[in-house]
């Protein structure tokens, strides 16, 4: 087993080293989402979208790596699309649907987090919010990793013209979530 783990780790390291070219810097400053929806990042993030199985409209950003913080930015999901693409026909992922109620949007966000492999996903406080002048919902989440690490999350989501715009931030509750929460709040504020 230990030999297998070492081999797997070696292969993963090789993959990471050779695929560094697909990790791009997203500098602090303006960020345009979807069809002309402006927002602003107050610090640099790394875009690791191409290392994930996300749908084309979704960008995945991180500062310290996926396990320590991740920011999903869905730039207008069409009906039938989810945060990630299904790996097989008999393993569907949660998908955005036309005419979802606000509670169904909340459920979509929660189920999408669970579909990333998180366990015990629970929604906490829900508040009204605004995204690009439209009514949105702010969702606070808690979850656990498979190994039991506590994770916190916050998201804002809005249906704009029949497409779902979503900004979702997830990080371990201890240290990491609060460390970068002000930057995420600044992003929300810039997109209000």
């Amino acid at each position, binding site marked *: 087993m230990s030999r297998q783990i070492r*081999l*797997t780790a070696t292969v993963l390291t*090789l993959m990471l080293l*050779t695929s560094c070219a697909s990790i791009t810097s997203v500098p602090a400053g303006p960020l345009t989402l979807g069809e002309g929806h402006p927002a602003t990042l107050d610090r640099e993030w790394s875009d690791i979208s191409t290392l994930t199985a996300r749908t084309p409209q979704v960008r995945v950003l991180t500062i310290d790596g996926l396990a320590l913080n991740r920011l999903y930015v869905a730039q207008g999901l069409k009906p039938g699309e989810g945060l990630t693409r299904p790996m097989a026909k008999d393993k569907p992922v949660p998908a955005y649907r036309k005419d979802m109620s606000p509670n169904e949007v909340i459920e979509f966000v929660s189920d999408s987090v669970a579909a990333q492999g998180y366990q015990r996903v629970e929604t*906490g406080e829900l508040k009204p919010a605004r995204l690009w002048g439209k009514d949105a919902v702010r969702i606070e989440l808690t979850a656990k990793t498979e190994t039991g690490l506590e994770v916190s999350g916050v998201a804002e989501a809005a249906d704009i013209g029949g497409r779902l715009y979503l900004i979702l931030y997830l990080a371990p509750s201890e240290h990491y979530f609060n460390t970068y929460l002000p930057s995420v709040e600044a992003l929300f504020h810039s997109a209000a």
Partner: protein
Amino acid sequence: MTAGRRLASLWAVAVFASAATPAAAAAPAGLRPPGLKPEPSSAEAGMWGESDREEAHVRTSAELDQDPALTAYVRGVVCKIAAEYCGELRVYVLDRPFLNATTAPNGYVEVWSGLMLRAQTEDELAYVLGHEVSHFARNHSIERYRTLKTTSNVVLALQVGVTLGAVVAMSGAANSGTVNAGDTIDSISRAAQSMNDLIYLAGMARFYGFSRENETEADRLGYERAVAAGYSPSAGADLWTYVVAETNASEFPTVRKAEARGSVFNTHPITADRIAALSNLGGPPGGAPNLTARRSYRATIRSHLGPWLKDDLRRRDFGETLRLLDRLEEEGEDLGILEFYRGETHRLRRQDGDAAAALSAYRAATTHEDAPPAAWRELAEALRKQGDRPGAVQALQAYLVHAPNAPDRWLAEASLKSLTAPESP
């Protein structure tokens, strides 16, 4: 999935859910003496070490059920059917929505919530646990472990080859400078993953081939243990008959063709064979239901019904969930919870007729005292979509009465305001 978890999963699937074909019985291995410890230099010592690591992992797993009464109950069933090993078997209930259970050679027992949700009586649970304990008692793990080591090494070598090939391909794509290089890398990565999955599955299929005699023996010995402890002789055949029915109700052709979970590597009707073998031992399935046994078991798992059904819905195999709900409703108990989740299943499926079916189920749920408050909220939304504004208002008001401190109260109030505002011409 980490390598360790992947191996653990392989092992888990290979144990109970393998749906082995009754075949020519292998020569029985010696019965394991209680308190057995492997020689440090033996093959089993390595397997124990892996089992210890998996057990340590499960102790901190987020999926570990936190209800000590439930764990104590399952442990009690284990001790009824295996009194001689009671002191060395450690039970962990995991909230995983699949029908499965395992027993590791070090005495670590996993029972998944998907099994507990699908068992209709303690007898059916005891049959499965009897099967697992029989693997443990007969030391079937040694043969499996040796097979697994050989097979997994071959599998790993192939997977490394495919992955390295993908790395080279991705590197080329990344350096090509094309606009779509990123998508190309992602595609190659996913293709490599698919190929690795195929190799992995082939490895599992190989593993299955070595364990089928053991599975058949465990079926028979598990049956004998359960019956000796006073459980119903038809429980095993009853449970497998249900598994076939649920699988046939799947949304997905690939699942329906597999006939039973865990049997994806077989091309013949293994579950039918298994039911036939168990029927020969204990009589045919489908006898008169033992309502006392069913109600007693339901009382044990009642507080878990809602969370387990919510987990089951995340599999998004709505046909299977609806079949499961049919089974759970047979006793006529817990209808508020069960009808609510029937409504949820139809709402999420969104096929023709599902909107009406969801509305009907939510309406039925709200006539029972155990309906969760969300049943009124979803009833309101279903009525609103039908254009029944007065009905939606009434249901939303009932929701706020049942859940005055709901975190989405502001959403319900906003919806009420919208529904009671004059309709624009």
